């Protein structure tokens, strides 16, 4: 990492830390972070391994249910509930990946889509998801049994700055986001990441050099599924609900859109892409169903004008 990049990361981190005190609604910020992590996890596959999964909502959504169930029914602390969501998504990722990595290109995408549709219909029927109603009133509980994330008045910070429960929850989400982002960053710049990139670049060649490419793809798939699950689990805790929207194919499509918009194969692209989409959905909510059309147009314009995505395009311009 060169100096300029370090400074950029420093600024972004500082921005994220002070965001709720300079006008950012904590609930909005949390949701942006969750989707940013989701998109980063997805990007590990499409941007660094060359695999287009069209069913990633199954990991995001199922982890939301797992986490919600653990927090609400079993009464576990939030960090354990998130862990259960993440582990559940990883296990699902292993099964789905094991089946999907045997196929390439569009067939890979179709296998993931088909399996995620199956998961969706199981969620519609299964008792523990609450079907159309979803899993409501998921409690945030006390992090590590100590820090209450929910609805108790907190003492003002330094005696003057008011701290709501949402702000405390925001920092919980931010901490876990940073952990997930760190894992992805490390994986991309690791010996494993080098092999993934070589598979993305030329799979038969990687195979002919003696790399068992299916095993590497499976490992990447499980990592990606686990972190997508972590994002879904955090989302369930921050909004206090898990619903069918989280496992729907539209959600799988949205994460593709976020990643492409921000720039696939870049580190910060998915973060920016997710933030942009969430911002649009939030602030344009007044337009009702026109939001979809505005987003569609934005997406088309972006793909036509800078197909590397926002961050990809900036990086390209800087390099020249």
């Amino acid at each position: 990492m060169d100096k300029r990049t370090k400074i950029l990361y420093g600024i972004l981190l500082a921005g994220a830390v002070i965001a709720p005190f300079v006008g950012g609604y904590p609930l909005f910020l949390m949701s942006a972070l969750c989707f940013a992590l989701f998109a980063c996890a997805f990007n590990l596959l499409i941007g660094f391994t060359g695999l287009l999964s069209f069913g990633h909502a199954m990991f995001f959504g199922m982890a939301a249910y797992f986490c919600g169930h653990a927090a609400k029914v079993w009464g576990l602390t939030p960090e354990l509930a998130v862990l259960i969501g993440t582990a559940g998504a990883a296990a699902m990722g292993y099964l789905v990946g094991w089946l999907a990595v045997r196929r390439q290109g569009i067939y890979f995408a179709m296998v993931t889509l088909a399996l995620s549709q199956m998961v969706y219909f199981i969620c519609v029927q299964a008792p523990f998801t609450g079907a159309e109603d979803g899993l409501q009133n998921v409690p945030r509980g006390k992090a590590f049994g100590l820090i209450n994330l929910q609805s108790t008045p907190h003492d003002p910070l330094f005696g003057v700055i008011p701290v709501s429960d949402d702000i405390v929850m925001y920092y919980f989400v931010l901490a876990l986001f940073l952990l997930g982002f760190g894992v992805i960053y490390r994986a991309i710049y690791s010996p494993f990441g080098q092999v993934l990139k070589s598979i993305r670049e030329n799979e038969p060649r990687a195979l002919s050099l003696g790399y068992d490419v299916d095993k590497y793809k499976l490992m990447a798939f499980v990592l990606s599924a686990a972190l997508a699950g972590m994002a879904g689990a955090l989302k369930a805790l921050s909004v206090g609900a898990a619903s069918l929207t989280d496992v729907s194919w539209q959600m799988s499509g949205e994460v593709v859109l976020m990643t492409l918009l921000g720039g696939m194969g870049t580190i910060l692209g998915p973060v920016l892409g997710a933030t942009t989409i969430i911002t649009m959905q939030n602030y344009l909510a007044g337009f009702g169903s026109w939001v979809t059309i505005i987003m569609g147009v934005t997406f088309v314009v972006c793909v036509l004008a800078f197909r590397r995505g926002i961050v990809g395009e900036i990086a390209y311009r800087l390099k020249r």
Partner: protein
Amino acid sequence: MSTDYILETQHLTKEFRGFTAVDGVNLKIVRGSIHALIGPNGAGKTTVFNLLTKFLPVTAGRIIYNGRDITAEKPAQIARRGVIRSFQISAVFPHLTVMENVRVALQRKLGTSFHFWKSDASLTHLNDRAMQLLDEVDLTRFADIETVALPYGRKRALEIATTLAVDPELMLLDEPTQGMGHEDVGRVVELIRKVSANRSVLMVEHNMSVVANLCDTITVLARGAVLAEGPYAEVSKNPQVLEAYVGSSEMEIV
């Protein structure tokens, strides 16, 4: 005294839905030799490569490498045994740097390739070896550029450096001089001669002057079957071989 063969095929056959692409081929590659596989278009040369490296499953027959039957093994396993192939089109990793291309091949032996929690700084000690290999193919000054920017001939040279990085016992080269200008052909031929010093090479090649001055043994394939085998002087006078090539402008039998 029996000859030492590094690779042998026994009645190697590949059928695609009733069409026999490779028909009972018996190949014997002498250890330390450069062996050419030639033949008209569609003779099954690349299919043989795909079978030897298990990129395609074998319909019938056996592949024996270093005295061991490897017919049932997977592509990555065969590669780890030291049989490394190249491809007809250049096989590089276009968006990695030239040096990283070679390093990816080197890092496999470290056994840390699944370690996603380790920094890639743990690979920097391989840089020197990678640079050495690049030096062998005269690419040192391109080390830090993105591979996609290399001219075609250089990409093929890089491919050879990458192949050497895994220290193969048997190199399978699929048309290493295809699509190259005169100078590049000369450079690649010298390169192949140099790197074949203590290993065996099986190559598919259309350029007969390359075959004539580089290869020890030549196997001619036609319609999936072996038509002739022997040194260049002998094979090039074989009436059956001449007949198979009649009307084909690709081959100038001298």
